[in-house]
Each structure stands twice: as structure tokens, then as C-alpha cells.
């Protein structure tokens, strides 16, 4: 048999134009290996959902090719559906069915489903198995949605914004479920606009903006490309001569160990390799100018910083 890594999801040059006008996806190519957790990270409206729905065979691309386990959707739709589990961005399951009834209903569509009891146990829904779906909390509903995706015993799990709107505890529970699936050999493709989710959960990810991939790699790769793993953020009072913004950026860029600088409405953010070299020099420079430091903090660089550097915008901005 082939090499140890094999491509499970593959697409080339995907384009999707709605109504001949709106270009939601503009030439997007991906290769996702077996056993990977791959994330599409991007702001709302970046084309993530359109992309994942094309890969899921629910939307036809305007052009481009999709292959799942080497097969196109047209060839063998029913068989491919047996091998994938899907959680859509928003599905309101029947409210008057119980959790168990819902899982059994979805199980009945697959030729070799897993036992409902196992799924209930695994997704911590056993206690709620006889409760109506309408009575569940947001986190429980989302776990049920993932349960309906897992009950068919899939090889690939597609999750579209699985934790949007959930509380931190529910989010962590879902992450555990995804990791457990992956541990058993499953492949995961998810979309998210939470950089922490992408960072903690995904082995590799693609940053999507305006229907295109603008960066791809492991989370640490992407952060490495920033140059510095640390961010130093501070504000300074203006000196007597007034405006400091324009020439100020160059001043900070010249500090030791600084890779890049950006000014966010008065807050200066420095990408820094070695904060212990930068900070003393920074204090001295501020002092020399006769200005005052208002805030100073340091943190680890995140995917958010990557996104901002690439696009000049934040992930959560509209």
C-alpha cells in the first residue's frame, strides 16, 4: 500500500460565483492528509462556508475540482456520504424529538452506524438522552449536531464553525471530542474565525480572506513568519512637538530585536524576537524623547497577529 500519508480531501482552483456577481471563492486549492485536523481560518464572509460546502458536495463549484479519497462527488455520492460526517454552521434539529431519537434517526441513514449508546456516552449526552432537543443548552445542541455527524462512523469530519457562540467550557468539550476522533485515525476539516481554536486544535491551517488562501501552514509556522514570537504593546503620551505617529513608527522599528511595527489607534504593537532586549531600549527611547509610557504589556504572538499583518484587519472586524 501507498505511503504513510495520503490525501483524503483535495481541491484545485475552486471558484464559486453567486448569481454571476458575487465571487465567494476565487481560485482556492487545498490538500488535506489522512489523520490531519485542518482548519480554514478567516473572518466572516471570507468564503469559508462556501468552500467547506463545496468540499462536502452540498454546493456545486462554478469551476474547479474536488476529490474525496480520490473520487469526485458526481461519481459516487452515496458511497462518499457513508464516509463523511457533517455538522453545518446552523442546523436546527427537530425540537420535539429526543436526543436519542435524533441520533437513531441519523444512524438509520448509514449502512454501518455506531451504536447510539456509544455516541451518547462519548459526547456526554447520556444524561440528556431522553430530553427533547428543544430543551438543550447551546453547548448540548452543538454536541448533538456533532453526534449526528459521528454516528455514521465517518472517516472525515467536516465542522463549520463548531464553537461559534458557545461558552468556554462547551468549547473545550468540543475540542476534546474532535481530538478523540482524530486520535482514532479520523481526518477533520473545520472552519473557524477564532484564532485560539485554530491554534490549539489544528495541525495545519489555511488563512482565508476574500475567497483566497493568503497563508497556509502549521500554526507555529505561520507565527514564525511574523519574525518574532512576542508582541510588545504600549502607548506613549505625545511630546510637546505634537504628532508622533508618522516618524514614530520608524523610531520603534529601529529598536533591537523588533521585526515589525504597527500602530493601532495609538497603541503601538511591536513584533519582537527577544523582549528582554527590546524593552530596556524602548524605555530609554521614550525617556530620551521626554515622553511618558502609558501602558506596557508583552504577550505571545498569535494567529490574530498573523492575520493583521497579512491583511491590515482584525479577524473579528466586519
Amino acid at each position, binding site marked *: *500500500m*501507498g505511503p*504513510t500519508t*495520503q490525501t*483524503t480531501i483535495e481541491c484545485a482552483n475552486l471558484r464559486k460565483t453567486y448569481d454571476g456577481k458575487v465571487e465567494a471563492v476565487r481560485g482556492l486549492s487545498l490538500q488535506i492528509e*489522512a*489523520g490531519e485536523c485542518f482548519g480554514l481560518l478567516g473572518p466572516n464572509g471570507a468564503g469559508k462556508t462556501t468552500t467547506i460546502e463545496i468540499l*462536502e458536495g*452540498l454546493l456545486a463549484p462554478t469551476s474547479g475540482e474536488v476529490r474525496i*479519497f*480520490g*473520487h469526485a462527488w458526481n461519481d*459516487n455520492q*452515496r*458511497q462518499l*456520504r*457513508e*464516509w463523511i460526517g*457533517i455538522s*453545518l454552521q*446552523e*442546523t*436546527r*434539529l*427537530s425540537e*420535539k*424529538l429526543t436526543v436519542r*431519537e435524533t441520533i*437513531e*434517526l*441519523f*444512524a*438509520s*441513514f*448509514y*449502512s*454501518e*452506524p*455506531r*451504536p447510539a449508546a*456509544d455516541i451518547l456516552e462519548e459526547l456526554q449526552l447520556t444524561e440528556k438522552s431522553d430530553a*427533547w432537543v428543544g430543551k438543550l443548552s447551546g453547548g448540548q445542541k452543538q454536541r448533538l449536531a456533532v453526534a*449526528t455527524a459521528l454516528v*455514521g*462512523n*465517518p*472517516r472525515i469530519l467536516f465542522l463549520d464553525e463548531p464553537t461559534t457562540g458557545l461558552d468556554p467550557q462547551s468549547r473545550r468539550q468540543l475540542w476534546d471530542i474532535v481530538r478523540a*476522533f482524530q486520535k*482514532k*485515525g*479520523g*481526518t477533520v476539516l473545520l472552519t473557524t474565525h477564532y484564532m485560539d481554536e485554530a491554534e490549539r486544535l489544528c495541525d495545519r491551517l489555511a488563512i482565508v480572506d476574500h475567497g483566497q488562501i493568503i497563508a497556509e501552514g502549521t500554526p507555529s509556522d505561520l507565527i514564525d513568519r511574523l519574525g518574532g514570537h512576542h508582541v510588545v504593546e504600549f502607548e506613549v503620551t505625545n511630546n510637546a512637538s505634537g504628532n508622533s505617529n508618522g516618524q514614530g513608527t520608524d523610531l520603534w522599528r529601529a529598536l533591537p530585536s523588533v521585526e515589525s511595527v504597527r500602530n493601532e489607534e495609538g497603541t503601538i504593537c511591536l513584533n519582537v524576537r527577544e523582549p528582554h532586549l527590546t524593552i530596556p531600549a524602548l524605555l530609554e527611547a521614550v525617556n530620551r524623547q521626554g515622553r511618558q509610557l502609558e501602558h506596557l504589556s508583552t504577550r505571545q504572538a498569535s494567529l490574530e497577529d498573523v492575520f493583521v499583518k497579512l491583511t491590515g484587519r482584525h479577524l473579528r472586524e466586519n
Partner: protein
Amino acid sequence: MATETTTPPTLKLEGRPPVPAATARRNGRWSGYRHLLWARILELKREPEVVFWVFIFPLLLAAGLGIAFRNKPADITSVVVIAGDGAQRTLAMLQNSAEKSSSDKSSANKNSTVRATVLDREAALKAFHFGKFDLAIESNPDGSYTYYYDPARPESVLSRAEIDAALQSAAGRKDALPTSTQSSSEPGSRYIDFLIPGLLGMNLMNSGMWGVGFALVEMRQRKLLKRFIATPMRRSDFLLALTSSRLVLMVIEVGLLLSFGVLVFHMPVQGSILSVVLLGSLGAVTFGGVGLLTACRAQKIETVSGLINLVMMPMWIFSGVFFSYQRFPAITHPFIKALPLTALNDALRATILEGATLSSQSGRLLVLAVWGGVSFILALRWFRWT
């Protein structure tokens, strides 16, 4: 690395990833259909509105109308006598005539009574125009009478004939021809007997249209249809389950309403129960199909509600639910008879009230089958899952 020993028969995959967990069972061909049907029935059972509108409401309607039109109670003719010189004499003549006929052996007029009121001219005519009285009587100074009646109101026409006969006979007119009459208000020919098959038909239409059409659009709006087609579920199974859930409900609907008619109003059922059930099934499936077509594209509940009402409205009016469509001009009858609800109502009435066999009504069955079949085909062609 793949530890699989079985490969799916339809596809050869080079190196499928290992199956994550042990499977419990293999599902058969109809497993999805059975679960969809059962889920649908559970949902309906748990929806109190459905239980009310489908089961309770038709019974209330039948009970209400059945009581309102009970025995066409004794034609009480309500007349007003315009106050004047002859008013008292007129009253006396009516009284006299009534006594005479009630002492008659024939039962023809036994139930018929005249209730006469005396009012002054203006008030009397006003009350007559508002429909409070069927007829206004004025005695003229020369001894003649003037009747005010409304030829558009059947009871007014009836009342004029009756009062005229009463006054003429009180004045001494002799019948030239001896007659006798036999009254008939046997079960089978009353309004309630006409009504219940019509309600059955209407109910099958209502619940078919709402049960299939509304449910579909709701599922589409909830993205549940999209979620379903993201699984290996057969789309035909889904539509089949939705339609056949109607059949299960139909048996209950028809059973309840029919037993209600039989037990409470002693309605006779001349035809075979099997024929009625078969007709009910055909009706349920036909309107399921029409509901499917009505809802095949709609994205919003509001849209489909309007569409369903639009489709049903002509049939409420023309298809003879509450009154016979014979009242509409004859030229419209071919169109009215081509409506599915007309065909269903006519067939139900013929079967229940006259004991007609299904084979004798192939035309009506054909109308239903064509509506249902064509709707299904168009619905499948235009259906929107997302």
C-alpha cells in the same frame, strides 16, 4: 496501514483510513424510511396544535354545524303585520287558519307555525329589510292585502306562499284538488349527512396541504433538509415517509369523523368501509402531492402559508364542502368538477350516502390520481433541498 478487511463493493479505494470504531449493526434498505416515518409521527403526536387542528377541530365543526342545522326546525315563519285598521283582523285570520290546519289529519303543516308581530309601518318595514321578519303584511283600506317580500331570500318566498294560502283559506277559499303529504327527514338526507363527507374531504385537504407543505418549508428553513441530504439518506425515502405519514393520520382522521357522524348524528354509511378508507388514502396522497408541489421552492414559512391558502381557497368555495356546488351556474360545473376536492367530496358522498362502488366512479378517481401524480412529478423536478 489500513486494517480493513472488507472493501465496499461499489468502490475500490487505494488505502482507506482505518475505521475509527466498531460498528454495531448493518442497516437494511428501509431502515432510513422507517425511522423517518416514525420520527414524523412522533413529532406530530407531540405537537398539540396538530392534534387540535387535525383531530379536534373537524369534530367541533361537525358538532356545531350539525346542531345549528339540526332538523330544519319547524319552519317558523316570522311575519310582521303593519299596524292599521285591518291589523287585528289579519291576526285573527292567521290564528284561525293555523288552528284549522293543526286539527287536520295530515301532518303537513303540523310543524309549521306563524309568528306574527304588529308594528307601525316604518318600524315594520325597517325590521323586514334587516331580515328580522320574512314577510311584511299590510291590509289596505279596500280589504286587499299587500305583501312585502324579498325574492332573493328563500324563506321570504316561502313565507309569502304560506301566508297567502293561510289568508285565502281563512277568507273561505276551498282547495280545488285534495292533496296529502308525507314528511321525510330520515337519516341520510339531512344537512349533517351532506356535511360530514364534505368535512372529511376538506380535512384531508387541509391536513395534506399543511402537514406536508408547511412541514417541508419549516425543515428547509431550519436547514434540516440540507442536513439530511448531507447523509447517505435516500431523498425518495424522505418524501415517501412524509407522504405516508399522512396515510397514518388519515386513518385516524377519517375514523374519528365518521364514527362521530354515526354515533352522534346516526349518519348511515351505505358504502363499504374499505372503499371509504381507499378513497381517504387516495385523497390524502393526492393532497400530499399538491402540498409537496406548493412547498417545493418556498424558503419561508410566510411564503408557503400564503401559497397554501391561495391553492385551497377556490376549493373551499367551489368544491361543495358546506353547500352543493349545484348552486353555481351550470357553465362552471365542468371546472368545479375538475378540482381535486370536488372529486373527493363527490366520491365520498356517493360512497357513504348512496353506497356507490369505487369502480362506478372511475372518473373522480382519475381526477384525483392525475392531480396527485402530476403534482408529485413536478414537485420532484423543482424540489429545492437547501
